[in-house]
């Protein structure tokens, strides 16, 4: 390994010797790697939402309903659900979202009873106060991502989802979706949306030791002949169903990412090939003075790997920079898929760049190794 690093200055000098060629390759690889990193970010965002939904909580929704805008359950169901064995806490929630379709400007309002909120959610207050929210009838506790996207601060009066609210606090939670929603008072939202006495869903905390599936079954059985039938699922299954709606789009984006990778492989392979061809004589001299074929191949490959890695760094950097400056959240059925390139995304992109560099260098490196010394020397 030390020997390989000893040749690093030589590799850098070689790349700098053909500055324009190296720069063009770098820029091409950067653009394609930016595409790849973006697709990875979408993929990781979906996975992160799925992981955050793994909570011991059930969601009671109206049966056969797709979007929160279409589910309507009587508020009186709360008492009956609380009485079901195995239920530790119930939170009636009236949900309003600005669109059931995919969008990049998701706003979700959760109208909840102020005293029950903390029974269900594990909230970390980042700014403001929960007490201020409880006392202000138009108060809102805003998720940190929504606050970041809309540049909201505590004390601001804003219009969210067609409702005027006062930002009383900014919160963080490990729960799926909380980052992109604002908690408002149930009565206020019911009045604003003309849905008093109704809830979109009930969140149910399962008592320790109780079987969530049995509890869900009991709830659905209880309301089977009532005014509105219920469909109770675990939070994870509920979020997974929402994510399922964009699975095909994500899969399509993934294929585009692979195409971008193919573009980089071909551009890099071309560059390394040109570089190896133009230095055939030089390589022969190195071989003559004792360098082994393996080391010659490593020399050729290191240029491709270096350019690939640099392209990966620049491309991933572009995506990280842009998505940090302009936060993007993809909304799906009221849940937000945050496009945040985290350490995993960066690591995956750089590993991909490394692999691309290796693959792109293979053919040129082998072609150098296979060239007979006498013919290569003649080219010097």
């Amino acid at each position: 390994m030390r020997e390989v690093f000893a040749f690093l200055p030589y590799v850098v000098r070689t790349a700098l010797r053909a500055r324009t060629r190296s720069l063009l390759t770098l820029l091409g690889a950067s653009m394609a790697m930016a595409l790849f990193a973006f697709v990875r970010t979408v993929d990781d965002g979906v996975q992160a939402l799925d992981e955050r939904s793994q909570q011991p909580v059930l969601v009671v929704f109206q049966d056969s309903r797709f979007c929160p805008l279409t589910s309507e359950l009587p508020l009186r169901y709360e008492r009956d659900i609380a009485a079901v064995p195995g239920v530790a806490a119930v939170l009636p929630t009236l949900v309003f979202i600005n669109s059931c379709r995919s969008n990049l400007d998701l706003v979700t309002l959760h109208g909840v009873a102020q005293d029950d909120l903390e029974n269900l959610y594990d909230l970390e207050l980042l700014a403001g106060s929960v007490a201020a929210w409880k006392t202000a009838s138009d108060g809102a506790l805003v998720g940190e991502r929504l606050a970041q996207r809309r540049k909201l601060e505590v004390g601001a009066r804003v219009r969210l989802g067609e409702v005027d609210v006062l930002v009383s606090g900014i919160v963080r939670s490990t729960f799926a979706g909380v980052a992109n929603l604002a908690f408002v008072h149930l009565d206020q939202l019911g009045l604003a949306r003309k849905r008093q006495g109704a809830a979109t869903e009930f969140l149910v905390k399962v008592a320790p030791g109780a079987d969530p599936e049995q509890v869900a079954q009991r709830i659905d059985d209880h309301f089977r002949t009532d005014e509105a039938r219920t469909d109770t699922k675990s939070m994870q299954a509920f979020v997974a169903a929402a994510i399922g709606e964009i699975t095909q789009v994500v899969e399509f984006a993934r294929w585009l990412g692979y195409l971008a990778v193919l573009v980089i492989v071909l551009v890099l392979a071309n560059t390394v090939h040109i570089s190896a061809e133009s230095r055939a004589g030089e390589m022969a001299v190195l071989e003559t003075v004792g360098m082994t074929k393996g080391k010659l191949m490593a020399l050729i490959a290191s240029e491709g790997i270096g350019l690939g890695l640099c392209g990966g760094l620049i491309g991933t950097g572009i995506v990280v920079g842009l998505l940090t400056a302009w936060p993007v959240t993809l909304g799906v059925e009221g849940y937000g898929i945050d496009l945040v390139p985290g350490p995993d995304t960066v690591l995956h992109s750089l590993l991909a760049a490394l692999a691309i560099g290796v693959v792109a260098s293979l053919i040129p490196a082998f072609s150098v190794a296979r060239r007979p010394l006498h013919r290569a020397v003649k080219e010097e």
Partner: protein
Amino acid sequence: MLSFSYQLRNLLRRRARTAATIGGIAATTMLVIAMNAFADGMTTAAAGSARDDTVFLLGVSAEVDLVRSVIPRGSAEVAAAAAPGVLTVDGLRAASVELHIATRTGDQVGLIRGVTEAGYLVHPQVTVVDGREPRAPFEIMVGSLAGTRMGLPPAELAVGRTMRLEHRDFTIVGRFAAPATTFEAEIWARLPDVMLATKREDVSCIVLRLERPENLSEVQLFAGRRLDLEITAVTERELLQTLASSLGPIAALARWMAAMAVIAGAFACANTMFAAVLARTRELATLRALGYSPFAVAAGLVQESVMVAFAGGAVGSLLAFAIGSVSLRYPMGALQLEPDLPSRAIGLSAALVSGLLGGIVPAVRAVRIPLVEAIGGRA
């Protein structure tokens, strides 16, 4: 000017390099076609079917969103019967009372539209292509993309099959097409059946087809005056444009990705041409010494670059054509990615732009090298 055969021979002289560049440009072209088809599919399906003579009457709290719109059935019937300026065909008013439902069965989400006979008058884009429209209780007809929307194979949506929706069995009696519209992902049934199955006592909207688009102001006046009905009039164009604008940012994102792919392709071309220029410094200088003008030499190099790009673009377009159309499901809809002629033309144009941009800089550089130095082989 340099001859075409000379440029072609030059490209064939370095086959591996040319093939790699063609491959890169082909992949870039496919990326551009795919992203463009995706962006087009998103926005065209939303706004492409808008008609100026069609007006929606929605519940006042709905803004311009059909999913949020709720109107009591009685009010809807009154509005459908009393709205002015509505077209009449064979004694039937083109005023369709509709209920739109997104229903979930397991992992499948279907979009059901409950319609009356007038529904076929107000939505002329819909054509029955197999079987017939629903006439008897609990019959449905399915759109061409309903299978994609629900993740079901075509065989399960064949005429004569039964589909369970909202805890009821519906018989499929027809299939319909409505190209480039949101209808394609829907399932249509009779309004009373959908209301019964979903236990709904209200409807989503009333769709009116006017005798002439100018009658819109009369309808708006009617909606504004009849406060008891709690309705608002919105043109189909306005409604679908709102939908398209919500999907617009996603389409824009796709187009940005396509632009990045074009830039990457341009760099690939430029790279190849730079290598070609460097390897042929002496040859190009000889051409200049023989009397070819710098412009002719530069133009020849740009032509070479464009030829490679054209070959790559053609390969990419052919591959996209061979792969064919792809259907994708997205929340509350489905779209068909069609690598049609315009999409392929855009892909090919993007490839040519890549070739042109990638060829200009190396060409200019080649002719700016002093002739004496170039003949000496110093680039």
